């Protein structure tokens, strides 16, 4: 089939981040997860006693919870979890200026284009390498206005009260097995506070890189957006390709106070040997507006459902999700919106592309609790199948307990239409280019939301996977 051959050339499967930097960690725990490992992590971070207690309690919860029986195939995961390193410390202390970062780590991020992006326009940049943030900086003007953008460890050290008030309140360790695991061994991630009324004009960005083989990354991010504040946070993730599997399990907690606005953008481009099981949740208070923009392009298996809990009257939640699954990949992604307060509104738009033997699943929950009067929600899922070996699934849970709610869900599955293709080729556009145009058109509603003008490397990522031209 010529059509399928053409699509092979779109460059969708090219992975540009497959390079390893030779580096020696200053410390790492022994393989596998145990109480000893948890104590070592806590000791290395010189944490207060309550945090060690919290970690140990979470470890017990993790051990007591069964593996999820739904979602992707986790049957090979247990063997992986026994073989990985849960904590790898790449350097002694975090840099605040680029010069302080060790050369080999610097090389890695240079290759990923981090400082370049920062120079351009970002309000702040963080970079995590293995288990620790190796670099964090924030523009002076924002620092002066009280914005905090730091590693999560520095958040705990320097802002203990604010930290403790919110930490693990949005995603408690009991929430799910991997949230419990993260709570036991978390390391790295960002701590963000946007003060009342402060509107960040450019995004904050964090970059996550796994370099070493058999490594587990467990970052933890806590973001507090105070009343009327407005900000945008972007994260990107990459790793080299190894023959053994790696593991990433982050927990992202976000609080939006009254009338705050926040957008969280993820461009996940892990290598195809990565299990990526992430819990992301925002607590959205009165009149606040939360947006998740979730791009899943890499990993072997991703299970990630960014969620909005609309707990204040008039709160709004939005999830834009795009997934690409090539051969050897299963993207089990989607979103969750829970309407608790009256007059809350939400929308979920999901687009997925399955190619080769890839499988993209949408899994979502839309829940309207009793008392959430006049809640409005709309869910739209579109799937594009490239080959006859590709697979797509849609599992939308819709649970409505309030009669004056108004919710809708729609999903469709299609292949690249012969008619579309015929139309374009009859205009003199070569078939391969026409294919690329159709794919671009399919993801355009979400792609246009990406902050392309801000983040150069994000732009490159999405172009590589989705908009790559034919050679």
């Amino acid at each position, binding site marked *: 089939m010529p059509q399928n051959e053409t699509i092979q050339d779109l460059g969708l499967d090219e992975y540009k981040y497959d390079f390893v930097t030779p580096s020696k960690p200053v410390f790492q725990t022994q393989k596998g997860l145990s109480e000893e490992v948890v104590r070592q992590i806590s000791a290395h971070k010189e944490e207060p006693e309550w945090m060690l207690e919290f970690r140990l309690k979470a470890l017990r919860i993790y051990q007591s919870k069964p593996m999820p029986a739904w979602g992707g195939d986790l049957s090979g995961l247990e063997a992986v979890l026994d073989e990985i390193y849960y904590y790898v410390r790449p350097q002694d202390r975090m840099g605040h200026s680029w010069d302080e970062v060790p050369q080999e780590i610097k090389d890695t991020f240079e290759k990923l284009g981090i400082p370049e992006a920062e120079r351009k326009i970002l309000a702040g940049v963080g970079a995590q390498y293995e288990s620790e943030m190796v670099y964090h900086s924030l523009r002076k003007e924002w620092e002066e206005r009280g914005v905090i953008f730091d590693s999560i460890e520095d958040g705990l050290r320097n802002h203990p009260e604010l930290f403790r008030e919110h930490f693990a309140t949005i995603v408690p360790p009991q929430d799910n097995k991997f949230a419990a695991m993260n709570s036991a061994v978390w390391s790295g991630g960002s701590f963000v506070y946007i003060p009342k009324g402060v509107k960040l004009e450019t995004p904050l960005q964090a970059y996550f890189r796994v370099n070493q083989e058999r490594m587990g990354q467990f970052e933890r991010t806590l973001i507090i957006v105070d009343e009327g504040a407005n900000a945008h946070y972007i994260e990107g993730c990459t790793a080299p390709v190894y023959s053994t599997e790696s593991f990433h399990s982050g927990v992202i907690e976000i609080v939006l106070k009254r009338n705050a606005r926040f957008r969280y953008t993820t461009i996940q481009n892990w290598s195809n040997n990565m299990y990526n099981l992430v819990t992301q949740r925002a607590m959205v208070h009165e009149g606040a507006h939360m947006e998740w923009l979730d791009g899943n392009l890499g990993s072997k298996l991703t299970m990630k459902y960014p969620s909005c809990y609309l707990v204040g009257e008039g709160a709004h939640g939005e999830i834009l999700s795009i997934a690409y699954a090539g051969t050897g990949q299963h993207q089990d992604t989607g979103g969750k919106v829970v309407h608790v307060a009256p007059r809350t509104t939400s929308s979920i738009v999901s687009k997925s592309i399955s190619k080769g033997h890839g499988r993209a699943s949408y899994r979502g929950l839309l829940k309207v609790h009793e008392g959430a009067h006049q809640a409005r929600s709309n869910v739209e899922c579109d799937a594009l199948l490239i080959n006859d070996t590709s697979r797509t699934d849609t599992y939308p849970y819709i649970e*409505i307990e309030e*009669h004056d709610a108004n919710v809708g869900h729609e999903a469709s599955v299609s292949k690249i239409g012969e008619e579309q293709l015929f139309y374009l080729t009859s205009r003199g556009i070569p078939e391969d280019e026409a294919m690329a145009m159709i794919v671009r058109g399919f993801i355009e509603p979400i792609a246009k939301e990406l902050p392309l003008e801000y983040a150069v490397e994000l732009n490159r990522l999405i172009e590589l996977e989705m908009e790559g031209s034919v050679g």
Partner: protein
Amino acid sequence: MTTATVMEGVTDALNAAAVARVSADEPAWLRERRDHAREVYERTPMPTTRLEEWRYTDLRRKLDFAPLKLSAAPTAPDRFEWWPMRLREAMAQDREASGHLVIIDGRVVHADVAAELAGKGVVLMSLHEAVQKHEDLVREYLATRAVPPEEGKFAALNAALWNDGIFLLVPRGVRLDLPVRVTRWYSESGVAYFSRTLIVAETASQVSFVDEVLSDDFAAQTLTSSAVEVFALDGAKVQYVAVQRLGRGGFYQSVQRTLAERDATLDTLNVALGGTTTRVDLNARLLGPGSNSDMLGLYFGDADQHFDFNTSQDHAAPNAGSDLLYKGALDGRSRAAFRGIIRVHKGAQRTDAYQKIRNILLSPEARADSLPNLEIEADDVKCSHGATVGELDAEAKFYLMSRGMSRTQAERLVVLGFLGEVLSRLPLGGVSEKVTRVIQEKLKHHV
């Protein structure tokens, strides 16, 4: 057989001795099938809400097996004048038919087929009679390919304990212009009824089948369990309609499987109006190229009624279509759950499969859960699904009120219009009118 869960649901009435009693006079193969089904039943754990298929119906709260007895009704009257008044009324409201079958308390008391059709080989009779007169056919199709006991706890229990049922055979090329009408009446409280329906429509035949279930309110919980197996062979056209009008206290449980072979059309309509709990498991299998299934559903709930529909559209062949539309209106504290899945198996190219669920909530305490799933393993397909939950159409209501209708009158009319869309998709003499009447009756309680 090592854990306590293994014997779940085995009670004084639902056990090996009961199976031995119902199968006493049956041929050996059937006795063996029942025994096997009983074994499957005993080792299958009771479904819990941890199972996706049972997420929205908690059997521990909804059904108590312990006190359920098997029917002890003496041989039911076979004379029309002695039948319950409501049964006779329901039959009188029906228009003409190709044949009738009447079941009272689980026993077939009457069956007739137009002489001309009987002459062409159409068979409508009790399953017991069919076991004797059409043994080979029954043996081939009963609880084998469509609803074997391995399908689940209820399918196994039914296959072990069914006490009567319906057998309909439409021979090759025979087309029935008028529907076959079945009317059932249940009178005993605290009883578990098990019945089966087996419909075989041979190549290029055509038939409509309407099955109406009635009862008064039950003093104690009563289970009516049914297993429905419908085979549409090459080019056959079959309509299967179930109208559930049980009284309160009824637990209506129905496992339905429709198998459509090459170029066959096999449409279903499930109307659920009565009972306290309704659970329908409908699986449409598109086995032959060019086959098609329209799957319609309609329910109206009030008070504490609970509806749970679990449907699947299995596309195993190319060029087949399926189109599902379920609509419900929920008043009082009633609750409806819909879980449906479209599965397009490998090689089922050029599938057109659709699924649409619409609920309106008429009261603050009503609740609706929808879970429409897609699993697609072929690339050249058109599949979509949609689900909505909302209030009554405010504009339509406003329009009617501006024409002088009261709010209540307007709401009743809008509900009728909303549900009417389903009935208009499957026009079948008398069914639409009858269902509309029952909904109107129920709507009188909506204020």
